[in-house]
């Protein structure tokens, strides 16, 4: 309860998080403002590990927004809601962290802890963020989205195809951002998930995103059962946190 977790940018962050973006343009706006704040966070400033993730996430979300405007998706209502709901989980995690709440998902706190140092390499930092966001946040965001649309996660539906379309956005954007690192990603993931058979093409995002869809279907079935839902949440949090810690460990550094 001593010093505010965000140091000199505490007020800015609290002010930003007081708002809850309602649509994708507002989410992009929020991420942009957040990026400007994160790179001012001492002592790391421009090399803030969370900024590495936030930048990647901003680029992805902007691309999704362009896709929505350009008629890229079959069910924009679904995708726009999902995008907003997905981002809301990231902002929630930041809010919990800001309040030093014990409810901060462990999947996120392993990355948040590194914000004030020691320095982490940009690629593992971004990867740890992607991990928390996709492996932990995404299944819940999917469930909430389907719930609010009075629809359900059905394989091969328009929604499923749109959801998978995001994979191509990641595929387009990641090499562009971190050109040449994909081989290392593959290696890393092969190590972490050595026993997974359906690992093909070696793309972390595509693989984990499919896992997230399966997890969402699993949670969907037990969403009215508070106990089962909570078990599922803890399980996902633990898994994502373990993977996140590994990515941020010295082992993760070889990704660079």
């Amino acid at each position: 309860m001593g010093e505010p977790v965000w140091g000199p940018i505490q007020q800015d962050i609290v002010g930003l998080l007081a708002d809850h973006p309602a649509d994708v343009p507002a989410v992009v706006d929020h991420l942009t403002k957040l990026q400007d704040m994160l790179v001012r966070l001492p002592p790391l400033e421009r090399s803030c590990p969370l900024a590495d993730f936030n930048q990647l996430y901003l680029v992805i979300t902007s691309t999704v927004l362009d896709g929505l405007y350009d008629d890229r998706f079959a069910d924009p209502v679904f995708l726009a809601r999902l995008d907003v709901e997905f981002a809301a989980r990231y902002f929630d995690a930041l809010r919990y962290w800001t309040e030093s709440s014990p409810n901060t998902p462990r999947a996120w706190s392993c990355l948040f802890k590194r914000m004030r140092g020691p320095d982490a390499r940009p690629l593992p930092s971004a990867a740890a963020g992607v991990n928390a966001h996709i492996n932990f946040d995404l299944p819940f965001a999917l469930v909430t989205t389907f719930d609010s649309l009075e629809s359900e996660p059905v394989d091969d539906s328009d929604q499923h195809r749109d959801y998978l379309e995001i994979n191509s956005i990641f595929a387009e954007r990641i090499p562009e951002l971190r050109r040449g690192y994909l081989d290392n990603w593959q290696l890393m993931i092969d190590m972490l998930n050595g026993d997974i058979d359906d690992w093909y093409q070696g793309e972390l995002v595509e693989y984990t995103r499919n896992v997230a869809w399966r997890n969402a279907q699993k949670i969907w079935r037990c969403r009215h059962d508070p106990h089962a839902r909570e078990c599922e949440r803890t399980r996902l949090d633990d898994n994502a946190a373990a993977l996140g810690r590994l990515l941020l460990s010295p082992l993760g550094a070889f990704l660079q």
Partner: protein
Amino acid sequence: MASDVDSPPLVGRADRVATLRSALLDDVPPGHTAAVFLTGESGVGKSRLLREVGDGLRAGGALVLTGSCLDIGDASPLHPLRQALRRFDAELAATQARTSSTVRGLLQVFTEESAGPDGAGALLERVSRGLSLIAEGRPLVLVLDDLQWVDRSTRQLLLYLLAGLGDLQLSVLAAVRTESLQGAHPLRRVLTELRRLRSVRVLDLAPLDRADTDRLATAIVGRPLAPEAAELIWRRSGGNPFVVEELARDVRDGRAGLSDTLREIFLARVEALPEPAHAVMHAVAAGVEPVEHWLLARAVRLPEEELIEAVRAAVAHRLLESADDGYRLRHRLVAEVLADELLPAERAALHRRYAEALTAAPAELHQARLAHHWRLAGEPARALPAAVAAAREAERLHGFAEAHRHWSTARELAAAVTGPASGVDGVELLERAAETAHQCGEHARALELLEELARVSGAPATCALHIRRARYLAAAGRSAPAEAEYRLALAAADCTARERVTAAAHPAELLLHLGRYADAGEQAREALELAAGAEGCTSEVVLASAALGFSQAYLEDPDGGLAVVREALETAESAGRPEDVACAYLHLAELLTGPLNILEEGVVVARRGAERVAELGLGRTYETRLLAIATNGLFRVGQWAEAEKVVAAALRHRPSGADAVELLLARCRLSVGYGDIEASDRDLDAVATMLAGGGARHVLPMLILRAGLAMWEGRHDLARQAVQRGLTESRSDDVIVLATLAWHGLRAEAEAHASRTVAVDERAVRRLREVAARVAGKGEQAARPVRYVVDGFLALCDAEVSRLDGRGDPELWGRSVAEWDRRQHPYPAAYSRLRQAEALLARRSRVATAGKLLRQAYGMAQALGAEPLSSEIRTLAGRARVTLEERPTERRHVAPRPRPAPAQPAGDELATLTAREREVLAAVAEGLTNREIGQRLFISERTIGVHVSHIFDKLQVRTRVQASAIFLRNGSD
């Protein structure tokens, strides 16, 4: 020791208490609703605050009803409300017999409710009527604790009442555990949506700060604390009031407390209890709260005096709370802590005793509780009939989600029962589980269960199963596979004549959804032929005729299709089933006002139909829907006053769900046209409240209205946001919505351009033009009626774009006028005339035509009652010096002008100026250049220069700044 039974003082929450009181009572305007959702971690004092605020509101003259949600996943629908009513009834004094009988009357509604068409909506209506009787004109406050466990029916009731549909002045105060809102809790999304509304607040209850922690600890200990003790309490409690209280007690009683989490504290407290009190705690933890005294006595089996002694000890240790209706644990965490302490056999024995006691004496939540206890007692055979009864009861109250859960439990129980002793038909369980899943929107689950049903022996026949599967698929919005299922049904060998008609009629409608109009027509004809040879197929005839009518309308043989639907109405009337008649009217009215665009006749049919179905006793459902169609038709033909009456009549039925949303939007459309901002905002908030419960797909009309409203308020930024959101959330094949959004967006940018105060968003303009182009491309392939509507909006889009390029193209606006005149839609037609006149005036060409257009536009706008539009026309006419031939009687509608009116009496220094010179000076004072002033007043830049030099001369000044200063000094406004 005894003093601990009393509540410790409420520390550090004075602000909250005051905020809540004003948010829920003092600041709520009469007839409005309000809600506060209090979130916070366990032990932070939510329940305590609810009690405190509830008492305050009661003292302030409100009627306060208090209930809690239960954590047994299979509670019964609307349980918290029913509990609140029972508690309230128990509190009523003997002198309040009249209120008491009203309360019992409402409770009776729940007992007597029976399944029927639109049952859920009708129940909502009855409940809100009952509540308003009980309130007797007082503001009503519903206080709900543990909302994280709320059932779906209660959630829907809350949204319905908060949207104002129950016509009740209601405030809701509810507490939610923060921990529960993580993950995928259904309330999460609801709260996110609601918190955007002005009438709703989501307040997080934070732990106490250091000073309040010390204050609370001091109050409990009864003397100032040593600094190290205070520090210890602060560090270990983190300001959680519950933990602070317990740690302070340890300090006071000289206990060396080692525990600093709630869990550890409870464990230590329970350990310290005497043996019989220990047993009481375990019994209450295993029970369903509140546990009545007689029931507890049966569960713990202690002699009466010992039992009372034990209860007293548990209460004194602040683990148990005692109220009139029974015992509750001080905190639900205690139950979780104790759960690990009992041996499974001990726990089962407790549940068995509860179950046996309840079997003998019916009590609240009877069947649900019986099923719960027998199941946990390890007696599936005895739990099964109770689960089935609970499921049926939930169905009776239209709580299909809860019913589905009970049926699922029943299936599990039946599987655990060995032998045929169960006496319950497994196939029936499966059928009911599937049907209730379908009814509560769990389509995938319903289909899964149907697969299972197909495999068991004694399953329904193949054809029936196909029809059912098709029905579920269609409800899930999967039209193509649903259509295929009907095809399989038709091919099935065991298909009866009746089923054949059903399986032929329904796919016609689905083909229409899929845009396969010709196939739909063919399918409908086939169904009608089949129906001609079968008895009692009126519903199918109506359905197929409507499909045929629409397909003909889309395929450009409107008259043929219309005749078919009219005939279907006659068939329905002579067969006499009310639902068929109502459906036929509905289809006919939709056909006329929709694709055929024969609005006047459509409105007449809708209103005649509404009367007829009201006679037939279907007022709530079908009359409401028909009146909604009439309202929208009347709006379009410009009979707004009539539309207003009709929508008010429709809302008197207190509709719910999608019908309510439709009517609120219709009323809001009128309010936006009238320029009644407050009423518009209120309806938009009500719609948002309804949509918070699900159905985000109805969000687009709401966004379009928001944009329209924001434009009249001069809030281009808000209009822009609403349009942007709409564009990112509409399907590319919904060309009508996209065209409407594109127009609103371009209009907002054009107005920004004209206002000179807000910069035009060039990217947005580019995007909007792309959307318009895309819509134009897709519109060409769309059906004729769709194209017809889209073309009107595209004409508006083109014309708005010309405003962005410069002064607006009078020819493009003229085209838009013609388009909307052709559609007999006076509102956009009048708007287009205004803009055409503006464009002509800006070019200083055909001034007489411009004047004529303005007068026409003004006449149309005045006839509608469209105040903001009239006011814009007046402003332009004033600047262009066009007389609108306004009759003096109409002056009272005039709203304040947006700009300072030049004709107002000016101060002495300005007395020498002519009216025109004053107008020019006002513009100079705004900082406009001569060129800009010329554009505004439709005179040349040079003439402005002449005016300005005259002004300087008369005022004896040399600069624009000096002239402006004089203008401002002399009461420019």
